[in-house]
């Protein structure tokens, strides 16, 4: 563990990159996943099919293959995302690696976000919508007052699982040039072979802390949204 404590700023920086990947692709996958879910639970058959095909493809492909697509195959098609390195966000230059990793993680996670939303909507009993209609609520009213609030609440636990998985999946970016936590652990163990168990535990604990933070905040959300 000593190797970690003497390079603690590097350790923190590594988890900073992990967090950056997590937050950016987490938000992006929520957006894309929501759009897909709307397609999937909507009434238009073709839209349902298109979203289903997307989900099937991305759910059954290993994340590493999607990374290979983004990092190795896409540049051959003329998309290397090098232009983002000229952009400046709050004083930082984004790296093309970071953008590719985020795209790969987003494409993959969106499929699971979509499924999480779908299970949430399906969890609302049919009778609720019928009751809303029978007391004379319009479509928009019954949506806003009855169906969506319940769907949102039911969605929190599966969505948390998806985001926790995403957090752990950011580690795959280590294979493609991101100096995030897993890659940094590897570098540390190369330098201090005799301390490898301690180094592993230090990084494992870092991930566990992050996972617990995500899980606990979802509990808070779940309890706050709970109906009496």
């Amino acid at each position, binding site marked *: 563990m000593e190797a970690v404590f003497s390079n603690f700023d590097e350790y923190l920086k590594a988890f900073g990159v992990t967090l950056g990947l997590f937050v950016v692709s987490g938000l992006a996958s929520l957006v894309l996943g929501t759009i897909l879910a709307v397609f999937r639970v909507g*009434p238009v058959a073709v839209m349902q099919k298109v979203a289903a095909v997307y989900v099937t493809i991305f759910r059954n492909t*290993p994340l590493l293959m999607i990374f290979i697509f983004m990092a190795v195959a896409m540049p051959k098609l003329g998309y290397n995302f090098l232009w983002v390195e000229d952009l400046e966000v709050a004083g930082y230059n984004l790296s093309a690696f970071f953008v590719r990793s985020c795209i790969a993680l987003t494409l993959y996670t969106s499929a699971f976000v979509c499924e999480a939303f779908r299970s949430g909507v399906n969890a609302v009993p049919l009778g609720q919508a019928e009751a809303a209609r029978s007391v004379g609520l319009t479509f928009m009213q019954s949506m806003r007052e009855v169906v969506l609030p319940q769907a949102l609440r039911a969605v929190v636990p599966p969505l948390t699982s998806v985001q926790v998985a995403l957090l752990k999946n950011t580690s795959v970016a280590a294979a493609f040039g991101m100096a995030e936590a897993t890659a940094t652990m590897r570098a540390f163990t190369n330098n201090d072979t005799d301390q490898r168990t301690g180094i592993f535990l230090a990084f494992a604990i870092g991930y566990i802390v992050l996972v*617990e933070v995500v899980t606990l905040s979802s509990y808070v959300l779940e309890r706050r949204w709970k109906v009496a």
Partner: protein
Amino acid sequence: MSGSVLFDAPGPRTVARHRVYTVLTIAGAVAILAFALWRLYDTGQLTYEKWEVFLTPAYIEVILVDGLLKTLQMAFFAIIFAIVFGLVFGIGKISEHGWVRWPCWLVVEFFRAVPVLLLMIFVWVLLSLGDGPLSPFWCVVIALTLYNGSVLAEVFRAGIHAVPAGQVEAAYALGMRKTQVMVNVQLPQAVKIMLPAIISQMVVALKDTSLGYVITAPGLTYVGEQIYGEFKNQVPTAIVIASIYIVVNIILTVIATKVQHRLVGEKSPLEITGVGNLDGGRNA
């Protein structure tokens, strides 16, 4: 009623609007496909030389034997060991003795929260590098066993809890001992409930074997890397290898659905909360 809570049965105007959406969606999908194909063509990815590898019998054999077979082997060993691991720790977690329960809980929670790749690299550094006794193949199997095993431990725990309490009470009433109740009554019924979850965990394990690429383990991804390293045909290789993974996983999923219909009837599959890889997490 279409069976969705979100919509009423559509009237004539809505039907007309849906038709417009249908046309727009088809147009959009076709446009995306056409654009992708055009990019492939434009950058010379559709030439015969780039695809020749996948039509050469020798290379097809390499892909199937060194790639797919190794991948399936790793997934197979990992899932078998994971079932044993899950059984031990899943039952351990519901033990009545605190000194059994807490260590099991700690092990399961630890391996569930740590990324599989981190675990894999650690096992590799520990057991394979230098004069380590194990090949990368077994490092992948070990890492996947620990991760999938802890997920399965939760599945077993939930499965055993899903057996109706009356069954256990009846068994006790007949004078069975605790072990007998577990082995003769609870486990056989729990396995039936758990089978679909176990099979979908196999999809996860299969997908995760591709991470072995990072630690130079054999498998489909590794073979793919060798091929595009040699022939510089990154795009076709990625498409072919990904398609093989997708087909194999779809076959597994179909089996899971069949098994579920046969054994569990139409009931919804076992819900395991807090499992990182949804559907597997279905992920990793």
